[in-house]
């Protein structure tokens, strides 16, 4: 697996890259782990040169396995994505960048809810 892709290649939207860089060290290990998974998926899409295409789950499965993931890991990855995206629809590279931003945003929303619960 090619792990040497630069940060810039992982982001088509530099504002999302900037947002991640500024907030990643504040989020929980779960969120960091989720973001690592999104990076692996985006690395695999870049390696397949499919970053400009809308990909359905079957195509994504092929891409992940071509990248070196086992069938089992690929299926688990798609199962995770299926809890966020419509598994009969398609996903773009940019959708995965937005999801990364959502994960980080959710950290603050959760903190907000916790603070509200404490105050109540």
């Amino acid at each position, binding site marked *: *697996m090619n792990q040497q892709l630069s940060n810039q290649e992982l982001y088509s939207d530099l504002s999302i890259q900037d947002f991640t860089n500024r907030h990643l060290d504040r989020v929980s290990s779960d969120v960091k782990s989720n973001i690592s998974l999104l990076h692996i998926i985006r690395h695999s899409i870049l390696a397949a040169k499919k970053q400009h295409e809308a990909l359905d789950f079957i195509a994504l499965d092929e891409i992940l396995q071509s990248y070196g993931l*086992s069938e089992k890991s690929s299926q688990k990855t798609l199962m995770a994505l299926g809890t966020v995206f419509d598994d009969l629809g398609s996903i773009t590279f940019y959708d995965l960048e937005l999801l990364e931003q959502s994960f980080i945003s959710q950290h603050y929303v959760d903190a907000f809810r916790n603070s509200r619960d404490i105050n109540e």
Partner: protein
Amino acid sequence: MSTVQASGDTQFSQYSTLSKSDDHRQNAVVDQNEFINFVDDYNQNLKNGEAPLSEQDALLIFEHSTQNPTQGMNQSDFASAVEAIKSETHQGQGTGENDVYSGITITDANGKATPAKSLQGALSGLKPGDTLTLSNKANGEYMEITSTGNGGFNTASYTADPNEGGRLISTQKGAGHAYVGDSGQLYLENDHAQITLYDEAGKPTDGTLGDLRIDEDTIRNILIDQGKSSTQADSLIAQFNQSTGNTTSDQATRQDWMFFFDSL
């Protein structure tokens, strides 16, 4: 927005995009005024070294909460996928993080050192001012990474533990996001980092960046640019892997490749 004044539509009107959208107000999973109060409190209770949430960021976070794409997400499914990938890279290739580093230690700002069981765990728990030290099992190199608290890292690489005579190889300042690759190797995404290389006398040099890691695809492209066929390039890379015993040449440095090609 170093601070946001608490409550009230008058104050909230600075969030022009949100204020204009009734849909957002109706669909929001959080109350916008309460959220503004929270941001204000958050910015007034920042931890050491943390930057305040900007108005732009607060707006963006609220926008995400109105769309809430992660509402249906199942954290356990995500965790399960990550574990599956980690597990197979550790078992399949023998290149898990325990094979890459013989020692992982976190030293806090007061000098208290704590061994870490995993690199991912150590990296996740790194606080501003903490220094993470890594001993590379394969080449004995020693690396110190200090979190600067603003999402950045400063690093120093040595030929061995500097307390045991290790020589400074390079430093980086302003490195960005750090993550653990599937191979177990630590990577720093450092597009804007200032990298300084040092010679054997310990003097800064403009250097050849010989210690930078360089991946197979780049080498393959260089060989093809130099007139080798794709098959010849793959054959040379295979020879390199055989000569070094590496299961993956992604860990090789430019210096490693140069020595190899000089020896042909």
